[in-house]
């Protein structure tokens, strides 16, 4: 209470001073003079306090906000000593700024600009003859009016600032003067009046760094204070790409973050690896955290669970890469952490925004298949080569039908997207509410995706010391899926597009589907497969996914600089998969198969943190956080199915209508994680930055003896640019050196793995089903997490007032205690035991570069990144190779071997063709025969480099941006060729290119495709390994922001745009797309393409309207 009284008296004092300042004003004083006066007055009256800049920093840290200001404005000015003691930001700001006739403008949620409040200076009574000028200042990009812009007559301190509607009025001595429009964060513009009385100006945003706020996990930090390696993407960056899920939009944007669009289906999954692949069994996916809640991620089949989040709701994405940043997430940090912050409301006018876009898409690259004539020819040739009767002795009889099955399964895709949002707030409450509906028809028939979502974010200052922040996100996504998964030949639509002969039609004249058996009626026909069109349309596979994600946090200030925060969160995902295979399909015979699978996963989170911030003297700043968190996840599933239905009409809606039921399948599991965490940031003289973090995680997943792990990190950064000897170099505006070390973990193994599990075993006794229990595995009480030790050395350099921004990192990661299945002697009754053995290293360099090539009314900026990661398996259990699962009946394509990249390609080396036109394999061990012992490493699924380059041009309301992105030096195992490009070996239709095959009448040992024969031995070999480096024009966008004020449109802002996605891909890869990965995230079959959904090229038109 005493403090409050002190504070009040100070305010009274300040008010007094403030009025004194007003009285001291005289028109015509220079800025410096004004400042000098101010300074003297304030110094005299406030008994001097702390440096003004220090006071601002204090507020920045306390409220997690960021200020923008011109240094010279505040140099040498002091502030009241007790600044930052209350929890009411508005009050604090007024207290700080008002005495100096400064004012603040809220630029966004957490950024404030500080500028002179010229309205206080204008002398209305002036002897001179004055002309009145008026106008509106707007944001050049959004067209929104800008309040608080300073408008000065050049060479004087006479000026004003714009009101809430961005409008100003100013009396000028002469209409030949020049006006200077300045606003923090925007490029200053000088506009000669030239006799006009109305001058409207659009200001363009000035690119700056260092002042931006970065979410770091259990808190935020200014970028300039960071010691760790963190890359960020803003909402503007996300908005420029019309992707359905935000993770797609990260592609090519961040150094060290590799995003593979592994599946082109609408809402399809992606594969993100931050600084390489760490783990064999433990998973290498990053941790996703939304507004502080680690969420349920991954995929359900082909469908990406992250697609339930509307990208337009995201304010920023911060990616934690090095150990200094990730160690605070302890046992879940080693694959990197992706922190997502959703949009919050900000104080001020209520805004309503409406956005809509329409996208038209087509498959990016359609393959040319053999036509009927070519097909008949190769079929006959194959038979002749095999000494069999030609299947088509009279080709002319069958080639009048010529179906291009690619045309039958592809269609023009279409997406529509609508978002409506409103936000606003007053001094105590800020809110943001949005709703979104997206509906997408994929480029393969029968594949659709839709999403509806609602988001509510509130910030409430209950008292100056208590803030409450509830957020709630609710969504439903629904995807109608066609089978393009993991190469299952029998039902994969893409594979079966090759199975279907071009001499057959998908339907008969009455529109009935041609049965698979009819398509496979020929002597060369493969054993498995079905009509691809029927597979796409008659195989119901619909995932409906409901998500409720929310949290509430309360932050209370216990004492000066000391606050506690309690957060409770929940993420609940309910998945329902409806399945029905109609009797039109062979797998649905004899009378249909229906199924329903439901699963629900719920995460509960509680976090309790204490934060202390303090400044000691001029040189020492502390920011310390400590806390305890608890998270528990529960999941359950139920699968039921039935077959033999009287009719297909009911689909799976009434499984009781089936004649045969299969046994129900249910399951349930849970895990708990309890953690203590702490972080201390210490800043010495504003240039030596130290960060220490530590986390102790206790995880239920691990063995009795190893429940707890400790994950420390330490980092040091030196802001060299603060040193005097650098400050003399005026080209350098920021130079920082960063060093970090730390440990983080990976606990991503299934729960209960450490226990000896006795599982039900079915048997028959007395002619009826009976259940026994038997050990399913050998328990390992020593089981623990994988640990990644990482060092990082980084440099941040900004030149020429941040016109050029450069950030470079080198890192070395060593992941040890790899989870591995270690073979046991079979006499134990078990094949293997899960143990922590082995290690993998990743090392690499990352470079991010940004440059504003032209600043001003015409704005041209470029940003680019390039990164290189080298992955090497260092040690495995007993040094034994691990061979990945078979890709198909051919055999395995990947191996994990010491000294090689994890899941390197592996097989026989093909060297041309034999004299009979068969594959000629190299006998590596020269033992006279070619067998499995001759297999060698054939390639690397990881690129040597990944890069992205984006450019943007702004002129007046026009904005043009482009993103080019690519990967160099990687291979893809193109398993599709095994069906569609081995000279009809398996009886499938072939790529048209296979006309250039080996022929008996033209026995070319270097022909690209072998002899057409059923006896070919198409072993896993280098024949399937292709260079899949690519360069892609990922996105080009042109937008125009209407000058709403000039046009007198009653809107706050209006923008229209057109954009193109995946406009062109330059690659030597022979199949649909080089950016592919057929198997899911935990699979060791990495970089393999088999039957994947191809990527799309799309064109979007859209509009954004603000009221």
């Amino acid at each position, binding site marked *: 209470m005493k403090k409050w009284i002190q504070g009040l008296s100070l305010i009274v004092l300040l008010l007094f001073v403030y009025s004194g300042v007003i009285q001291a004003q005289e028109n015509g004083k220079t800025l410096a003079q004004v400042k000098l006066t101010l300074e003297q007055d304030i110094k005299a009256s406030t008994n001097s306090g702390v440096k003004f800049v220090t006071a601002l920093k204090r507020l920045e840290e306390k409220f997690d906000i960021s200020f923008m200001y011109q240094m010279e404005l505040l140099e040498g000015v002091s502030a009241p000593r007790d600044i930052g003691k209350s929890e009411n930001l508005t009050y604090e700001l007024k207290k700080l700024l008002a005495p100096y006739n400064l004012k603040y403008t809220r630029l966004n949620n957490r950024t404030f600009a500080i500028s002179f409040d010229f309205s206080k200076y204008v002398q209305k009574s002036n002897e001179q003859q004055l002309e009145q000028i008026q106008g509106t200042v707007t944001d050049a990009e959004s067209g929104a009016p800008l309040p608080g812009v300073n408008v000065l007559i050049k060479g004087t301190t006479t000026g004003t600032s714009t009101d809430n509607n961005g409008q100003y009025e100013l009396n000028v001595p002469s209409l030949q003067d020049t006006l200077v429009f300045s606003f923090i964060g925007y490029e200053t513009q000088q506009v000669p009046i030239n006799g006009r009385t109305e001058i409207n100006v659009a200001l363009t945003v000035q690119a700056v760094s260092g002042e931006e706020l970065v979410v770091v996990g259990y808190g935020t930090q200014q970028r300039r204070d960071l010691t760790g390696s963190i890359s960020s993407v803003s909402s503007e960056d996300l908005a420029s790409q019309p992707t359905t899920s935000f993770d797609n939009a990260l592609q090519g944007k961040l150094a060290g973050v590799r995003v593979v669009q592994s599946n082109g289906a609408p809402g399809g999954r992606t594969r993100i690896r931050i600084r390489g692949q760490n783990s064999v069994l433990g998973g290498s996916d990053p941790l996703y955290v939304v507004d502080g809640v680690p969420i349920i991620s991954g995929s359900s089949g082909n469908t990406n669970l992250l697609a339930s989040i509307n990208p337009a709701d995201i304010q920023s994405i911060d990616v934690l890469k090095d150990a200094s940043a990730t160690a605070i997430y302890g046992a879940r940090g080693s694959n990197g952490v992706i922190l997502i912050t959703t949009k919050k409301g900000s104080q001020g006018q209520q805004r309503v925004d409406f956005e809509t876009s329409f996208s038209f898409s087509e498959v990016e690259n359609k393959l040319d298949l053999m036509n009927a004539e070519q097909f008949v020819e190769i079929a006959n040739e194959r038979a002749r080569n095999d000494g069999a009767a030609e299947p088509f002795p009279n080709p002319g009889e069958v080639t009048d039908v010529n179906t291009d099955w690619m045309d039958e399964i592809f269609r023009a895709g279409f997406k529509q997207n609508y978002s409506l949002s409103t936000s606003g707030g007053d001094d105590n409450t800020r809110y943001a509410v949005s709703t979104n509906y997206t509906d997408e028809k994929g480029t393969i028939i029968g594949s659709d995706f839709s999403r509806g979502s609602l988001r509510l974010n509130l910030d409430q200052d209950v008292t100056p010391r208590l803030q409450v922040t509830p957020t709630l996100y609710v969504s439903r996504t629904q995807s109608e899926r066609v089978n393009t998964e993991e190469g299952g030949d029998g039902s994969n639509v893409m594979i079966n597009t090759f199975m279907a002969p071009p001499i057959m039609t998908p339907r008969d004249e009455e529109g009935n589907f041609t049965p698979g058996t009819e398509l496979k009626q020929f002597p060369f026909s493969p054993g498995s497969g079905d009509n691809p069109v029927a597979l796409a349309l008659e195989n119901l596979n619909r995932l409906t996914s409901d998500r409720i994600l929310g949290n509430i946090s309360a932050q209370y200030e216990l004492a000066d600089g000391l606050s506690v925060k309690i957060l409770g969160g929940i993420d609940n995902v309910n998945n329902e998969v409806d399945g029905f295979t109609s009797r039109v399909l062979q797998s649905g015979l004899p009378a249909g198969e229906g199924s329903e699978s439901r699963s629900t996963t719920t995460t509960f989170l509680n976090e309790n943190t204490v934060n202390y911030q303090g400044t000691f003297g001029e040189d020492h700043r502390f920011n310390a956080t400590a806390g305890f968190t608890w998270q528990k996840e529960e999941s359950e599933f139920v699968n039921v199915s039935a077959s033999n239905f009287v009719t297909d009409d009911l689909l799976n809606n009434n499984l009781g209508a089936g004649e045969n039921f299969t046994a129900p399948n*249910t399951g349930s599991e849970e895990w708990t994680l309890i953690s203590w965490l702490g972080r201390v940031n210490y800043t010495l003289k504003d240039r030596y930055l130290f960060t220490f973090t530590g986390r102790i995680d206790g995880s239920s997943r691990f063995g009795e003896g190893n*429940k707890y792990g400790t994950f420390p990190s330490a980092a040091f950064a030196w802001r060299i640019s603060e040193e005097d000897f650098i400050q003399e170099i005026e080209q350098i505006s920021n130079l920082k050196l960063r060093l970090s070390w730390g440990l983080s973990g990976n606990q991503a193994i299934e729960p209960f793995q450490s226990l000896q599990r*006795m599982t039900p075993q079915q048997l028959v*006794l007395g002619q009826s089903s009976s259940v026994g229990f038997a050990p399913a595995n050998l328990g390992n009480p020593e089981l623990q997490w994988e640990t990644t030790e990482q060092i990082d050395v980084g440099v941040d350099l900004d030149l020429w007032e941040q016109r050029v921004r450069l950030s470079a990192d080198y890192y070395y990661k060593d992941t040890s205690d790899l989870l591995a299945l270690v073979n*046991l*002697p079979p006499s134990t009754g078990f094949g293997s035991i899960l143990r922590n053995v082995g290690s993998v290293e990743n090392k690499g360099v990352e470079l991010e570069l940004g440059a504003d090539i032209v600043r001003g009314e015409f704005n041209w900026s470029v940003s680019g990144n390039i990164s290189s990661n080298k992955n090497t398996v260092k040690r495995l259990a007993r040094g034994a190779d691990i061979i990945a699962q078979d890709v198909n009946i051919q055999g395995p394509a990947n191996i994990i071997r010491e000294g090689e990249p994890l899941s390197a390609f592996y097989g026989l080396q093909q060297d041309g063709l034999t004299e009979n036109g068969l594959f000629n394999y190299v006998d590596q061990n020269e033992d006279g025969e070619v067998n499995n012992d001759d297999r060698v490493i054939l390639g690397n699924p990881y690129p040597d480099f990944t890069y992205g380059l984006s450019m943007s041009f702004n002129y007046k309301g026009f904005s043009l941006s482009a993103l080019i992105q690519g990967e160099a030096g990687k291979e893809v195992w193109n398993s599709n060729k095994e069906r569609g490009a081995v000279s009809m070996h398996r009886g499938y239709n072939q790529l048209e290119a296979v006309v250039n095959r080996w022929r008996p009448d033209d026995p070319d040992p270097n022909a690209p495709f072998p002899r057409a024969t059923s006896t070919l031995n198409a072993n896993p070999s280098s024949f399937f390994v292709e260079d899949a480096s690519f360069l892609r024009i990922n996105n080009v966008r042109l937008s125009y922001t209407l000058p709403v004020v000039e046009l007198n449109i009653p809107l706050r802002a209006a923008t229209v745009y057109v954009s193109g996605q995946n406009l062109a891909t330059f690659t030597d890869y022979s199949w649909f797309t080089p950016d592919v990965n057929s198997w899911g995230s935990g699979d060791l079959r990495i970089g393999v393409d088999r039957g994947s959904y191809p990527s799309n090229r799309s064109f979007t038109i859209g509009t954004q309207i603000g009221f």
Partner: protein
Amino acid sequence: MKSLRRSPTKLGLLLVLVILCTGCDSVLNEEPKTFLSEEGVFSSQAGADAATKGIYASLRNFSYYDRWFTAMVEMHADYVNGRGSQAPVGQYQLNAQNIGRIGDMYGAIYESINRANSVISGVPDIDMDPNLKNQYLGEARFLRALGYFNLVRLFGGVPLRTQPTKGSETDLPRASEDEVYSLIMEDLQFAENNLPGSYDQSSHGRATSWAAKTLLADVYLTLERWGDAAAKAREVMDSGEFSLVQVSSSEDFHTKMFGPGVTSYPEEIFSIQYTQSIPAGWLGWLHKPAAGYSSGGVFAWWGELDSFIGQGEWATENSSDLRRNAFLYSGEETQYLDPTINMLFSKFRGSPADEGVDMPIMRYAEPILIFAEAATMANGGPTSEAYEAVNMIRRRAYGQDPAVADPGGVDLSSGLSQEAFRDSVLLERGKEFIMERKRWFDLVRTGTALEIIQGLGKPITEKYLKWPIAQEEIDNNGALTEDDQNPGW
């Protein structure tokens, strides 16, 4: 921090945060949900029952009786050839793939043994009905003995594990054959004394004391303890619990014994039980004309016509031995097969959707024939009881009443030497137990395997009498080296 000291409530709040998790450890203990812990299972009578049933379930393992054990044992015998990937087995040119299958089988038998060991070590401490306790221990020891008996006959002395596997201490050298047999006999003696003679219908399929005695008789026979073998087989014959099923046509074998509609029969001593809804996997491999025979190894092993199944009157379909047409049929009857494959096995058959045929492990014909052989060997020549025993089997096979003598008819001619009589018994065993995994063991224990199979022109060598120990065993068992592999592998 001054204000903290002055503000106990605030300090209290902080403390709560820190203390919040005293006793957190218990949250981290995993409570199994979809499975049971070992302690959970071995804490009640019901758990003991479930763990015991778990051993029976292991017999259904794909790599044990349900496929590879059956396939490998039969294809090594003289009368079966494999197709597709299994073809090298019947040609005694084991390749890596089939050696791998033998390794899988080896592991599957040990999985069964480990489950039995769990019961043997876990059940004694449970507070429960002492009779049931002994029954469960008896079942476990019977099944462990069955596993080791299979192992020792195929591989010789193997690592002798008598405790459930725990942790990572897994090194154990090979035991001698004698040590393995000692354990087998000890287990079976415990089993015969503690297992019930029969069960009520709901437990049909569990091991009885008669099953233990029959298996023990087989063990004695294998060890050439003729007197013990004859005596133990005699106990079963004298029990009155079993009788031979009478047949009057070939089809009767299916309607009364080996068909999917048969749930139990008077001859049954121990079988693996299957039903239509929980079907056998092996059946589809053996015989699946309805689904067509593929060009690969799947479906249909074929008969070696140069062996006993193609000799004498069995060469024709007109044989009056009803077993001929019950157990064998001509491959020409199917449209899918190579016409040169003209003998297939039809003893166990069901439509693809009807694979509930039980798999006999032991049936009453076995102790009868064990007795015939053992008594003759013990006596130095055939006894009248031995003649009667083998003749019972022959009479049934020809559709006659097993109990009514048929001298000059199907009965063996009298006055046979010991050797000739034994050969007759062995031939009778061969015919009677087609596809019941007896023939290979008969050939090996009588020392005739090489001679008979080489006589068919097949390149079998000495090393095939002791199969290769799983390579994974040698690689991962620190007590073994490559030298511990069976000779020749």
